[in-house]
């Protein structure tokens, strides 16, 4: 996940360096949306992963 977030940051920097200010701001909002979705899917507590971790740590 850290890798994906780092890649998004690289993309954001590349866009900031190559486009006018308001274009870059527009893209920044879209990239922030993508990052928040990634967080929601993979970093937010997930009942299956939590149950599996608990189960295997009990073993």
């Amino acid at each position, binding site marked *: 996940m850290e890798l994906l977030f780092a890649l998004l940051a690289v993309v954001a920097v590349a866009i900031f360096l*190559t486009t006018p200010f308001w274009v870059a701001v527009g893209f920044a909002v879209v990239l922030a949306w993508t990052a928040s979705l990634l967080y929601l899917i993979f970093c937010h507590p997930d*009942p299956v992963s939590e149950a599996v971790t608990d189960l295997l740590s009990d073993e």
Partner: protein
Amino acid sequence: VTNQLHDLSATAPPAGTAALQSDRAWYLPTTVGVTLLWLLFWSGFIVWWTLMAALFRQGAYAAAVIVAYALPTLYMLAAFIASRRPGRAIKLLHFGTFLVLSVFFAALLAFMGESPPLNDAGPYLGMAFIAAVMGLMQYPKAGLKHYQAYRSSLFIGGVIFMPLFIYFSAMLPNVPSAPALDKAYLFPLGMLGFWLSAAWLILRATQGEHVPGLEVRPLLPFRPDFILPGGVNYVKGTIMMGVGLMIAIMPLLRMPKWNWWGFVLAFWGIITIIPLRGMYKMVRGRRLRLLGLGGRGFRHETVKGLILFIGLLIMLYGFVNAFFGTVPFVDLGVRPAFNAFATGTPTTQAVSVVAFVLAFIVLVPLRGWYKTRLLEGIETKGQMFTSQALLWVGTLLMLISFVHFLNLPPIRDLGYMAFYPNSNPVGLAVGLVLFLAGSALILILRPIALHNEMEATMLTMVGVASDQPDALRHWVLKRRVQTLATMPELQRNQHVAWMAAGLGQLSPEKRRLMMGTQMAVLAEADSKTRRQIMTAMDQAMMGGV
């Protein structure tokens, strides 16, 4: 392939244990492998694009179209040939074919004295994104021996035809707009491959079988083939509907232009709609539902609808810019001429607002509510069609809202969208064909793709469970039996039939393991649950549902 898989699944270590014990062990090789593939695809796409653009500029249209189709067609053919032959190295044939073609195209470019233009970062960023998706989806994470068991030729073909966007980017700015008829046949010619490569993804052979070593989270294998077909049919259907509508409503024949920054933005809309929404559906929906841990109800469907709605907003704004030849956030919606609320008529403003609100209502609460009424896995054809019809109506309303809100030139005279069969018969015909072809992807083909994705997920789940350590496998089957017991009989029978089919794909050792766990779980269950499951298993063995 199934027999080979039996060998593999019998000898492979429990993938779940491995994945959990060294959660990040696969990060490094995967990162290196995907990066190498990304470089291969990125450099190849740049050469391919430059060659096509040069040929279009020189008026060699036939040669440009041949170059456009040669790359994905030969690539897919190589993948198909490799799928018919044993051995590991042969599985790299499609990547090798791509490399050879790229070198050949580069040699042709050198011979022609052409080189990639360096005046804009947009194309390089756009193609870098496409290449990243190519690399991620085709990287052989579970090894080469059974590569085509989890990345089928049809899937590989569907993936490699997606970059036909590059054909449009090479053709649209380099073919003169007069005579307009040139673009009027060259554009649909590119759309043909675009459409076909979405259509064949509905075939059942697109989805591969279970192969150990694909887990990225507990009980979650990385299977883009379970997400891509439905997503691609929707995204391509929407693009074809949108671009068809834009061509059809022109008073005179005008074909689209191209701007790479529009595509760069649209790409993130596609990413929202296909992989991110697809993974949300898997991680937060189906995986929880199958184990009875949530992932259902109006709230869940609303979140899915919102992700779709926002993704659609991003994608449509990006593609309107791409095909209008403008940079996003600069002209369309920003300059007064391209904003109905600055220079549009009250009718234009009203249509844009009403269509937008209706699109939201249809796509988020209405469709979300409708989907809570369906029983997963046993939806009737009518129900599946209705769900897609709501999606189609919501998407069309959104397109109408965009066209009016952006106060596009054909809207300005009348204040609303209209068709001009007398002054633009060719545009109307071309636009209508594209619109109907896109609609067919959403309304007719997508339901079939979604059904196949569901079936493949269910079959594979058995294999994923069989790879787990004893305690986890027992827990999964226990949760599954409890969940099945709460289902209506018809739905339970269908799910058990799929599980039985998944069991049949395992090696004898893995199958025995799963049967043993299943018996232990059933022995622990109450008599009513046990009877329900045994009845469903009897039905499955009799071959009925």
